[in-house]
């Protein structure tokens, strides 16, 4: 559904020197699939997500979304089927948590009753329903992150035509405690089971192994490995990318790889 082909992205620092950010990157996300991008700081994870959601236009390469060129879609068309959660949010006006999530329904014309129903479900799904009447500005960092996640999920909660839906999340668990990290992992699987594609960047390898269909391991602006958690989370590969010794065991319940370091 989302296809990135041979993406090259440079940030021009000055005229003579170009800093390469992404080099010949290919990426494919299908509906119903959770794809997690991993890599050390500065590997190009966020840049990759920005190219994928059309926020940054690469110097060369093409991005297709639902078989259309992403750059040919208007903001309104795109917003009906793709929701994006940036790394941090700047909202400093005292909307209630519920109003923030309701903003996720901005692109849709589905009527207040359905919107309210979807917002309530989204609030429950990220465990912020009890905060719905609180001012967003008074929430803690983790609570804010869960409210923003609910907003993004509400935007593409249900399918409205034959286009496939996608959520792009840049580190959705960075401010969350263990139980809410687990909740997000479950939630992403749930959304994927509903047919939505999920593309997310994460730092926690074990959480990624727990929820991903496909892992994308990045290093220095290039994709180092793509595949199932089992294929990508190899001790030697991880040492090369992260410069840290990992020991891999198998999680006794999920059967997925588990890394100790």
């Amino acid at each position, binding site marked *: 559904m989302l296809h990135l082909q041979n993406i090259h992205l440079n940030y021009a620092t000055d005229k003579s020197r170009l800093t390469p950010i992404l080099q010949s990157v290919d990426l494919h996300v299908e509906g119903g699939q959770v794809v997690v991008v991993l890599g050390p700081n500065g590997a190009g994870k966020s840049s990759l997500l920005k190219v994928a*959601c059309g*926020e940054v236009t690469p110097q060369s390469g093409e991005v297709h979304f639902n078989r259309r060129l992403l750059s040919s879609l*208007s*903001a*309104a*068309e*795109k*917003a*009906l089927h*793709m*929701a*994006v959660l*940036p790394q941090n*949010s*700047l*909202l*400093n*006006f*005292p*909307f*209630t948590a519920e*109003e*923030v999530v309701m*903003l*996720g329904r*901005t*692109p849709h014309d589905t009527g207040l009753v359905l919107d309210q129903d979807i917002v309530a479900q989204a609030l429950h799904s990220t465990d912020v329903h009890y905060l719905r*009447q*609180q*001012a967003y*500005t*008074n929430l803690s960092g983790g609570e804010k992150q869960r409210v923003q996640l609910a907003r993004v999920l509400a*935007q593409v909660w249900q399918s409205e035509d034959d286009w496939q839906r996608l959520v792009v999340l840049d580190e959705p668990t960075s401010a969350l405690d263990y139980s809410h990290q687990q909740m997000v992992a479950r939630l992403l699987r749930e959304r994927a089971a509903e047919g939505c594609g999920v593309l997310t960047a994460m730092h926690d390898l074990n959480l990624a192994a727990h929820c991903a269909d496909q892992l994308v391991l990045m290093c220095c602006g290039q994709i180092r490995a793509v595949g199932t958690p089992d294929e990508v989370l190899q001790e030697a590969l991880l040492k090369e990318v992260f410069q840290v010794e990992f020991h891999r065991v198998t999680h006794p319940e999920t059967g997925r790889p588990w890394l100790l370091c």
Partner: protein
Amino acid sequence: MNRMQPTKLMITLGVMLPLSLLVSLAVGPELILPFWQSAEAQTVSNQLIIQQIRLPRTLMAAIIGAALAVSGVMMQGLFRNPLADPSLIGVSSGASAGASFVIVMGAGLFGVHELLGVSFVAMGAFLGATVATWLVYRLAATATGTSVATMLLAGIAISALAGALNSFFSFIADNHMLRQISLWQMGSLSNASWGRVVFAVFLLGGLLCWFPRYSKALNAFLLGESEARHLGIDVDRIKLQVIVLVALVVGIAVALTGTIAFVGLVTPHIVRLLIGPDHRGLIPCSALAGAILLMLADACSRFVLAPGELPIGVVTAVLGAPFFLSLLRRQRAATGGL
């Protein structure tokens, strides 16, 4: 959150609007009460006072108050900053420089004629406002869109430049001109005539009707520009339209009555405290509240020093600043933040 329903506030303000209009008509050097029995000659003169002086002036206060308050709402939404104000993009200082230029140089160049009831000073102010806004916008516009942060900084720089021009004109002005300049900068409603009121109501009223259609987009804007884009808002188009509309509205308002401080900053704040930041309620409620506030402030300005009158800008600042500070303190005590 203890919030008022926007419709409830709108009804309350809708009731207060005609009441403040009556108060503003009654108050002044001569207290004129409706149904007051008095001598025949007195009644005729009272009718004249109401018809020719107080009614046009009160209507002018209402429309200017509404225009300034709504412009404040739009700027605060666009800049995602509850302390933003139309003066940030250089409108007010540009207008001041334009007005000073005409006051100092104009008498020699054009005489003191009026066109359509609008003096050349007003036209100079409007041109100054337009040029300043255009410069700020050009400086902040890049190939990838307009940077709001750059625009704020450009606004400060252009305001400083306009301020320097203003000081220069004051420096070369003679005593009479200097007094005119400083009176103009304090703002005044005293020269409201029926011609000007009709002009203001049609032009500003028409432009203001255009604003509520941006409420959905501005709500999304508060999340951040890229978030708004991902919510399907055509960010660059909306930004350009809002800036042009606000520059027009504030330019016209400043041209008609000079700079009137604090209405554009305080009114949206008060309304936001009452009903929250949702622009669907905020825009119409701020328009009503701004109209009421400026009418009452104008009544105050005529009453306090009667039979003389205080410049309206002084009244709004003296009433607005402490009120604003107390709101800030109360809010900080209640929420521990913004």
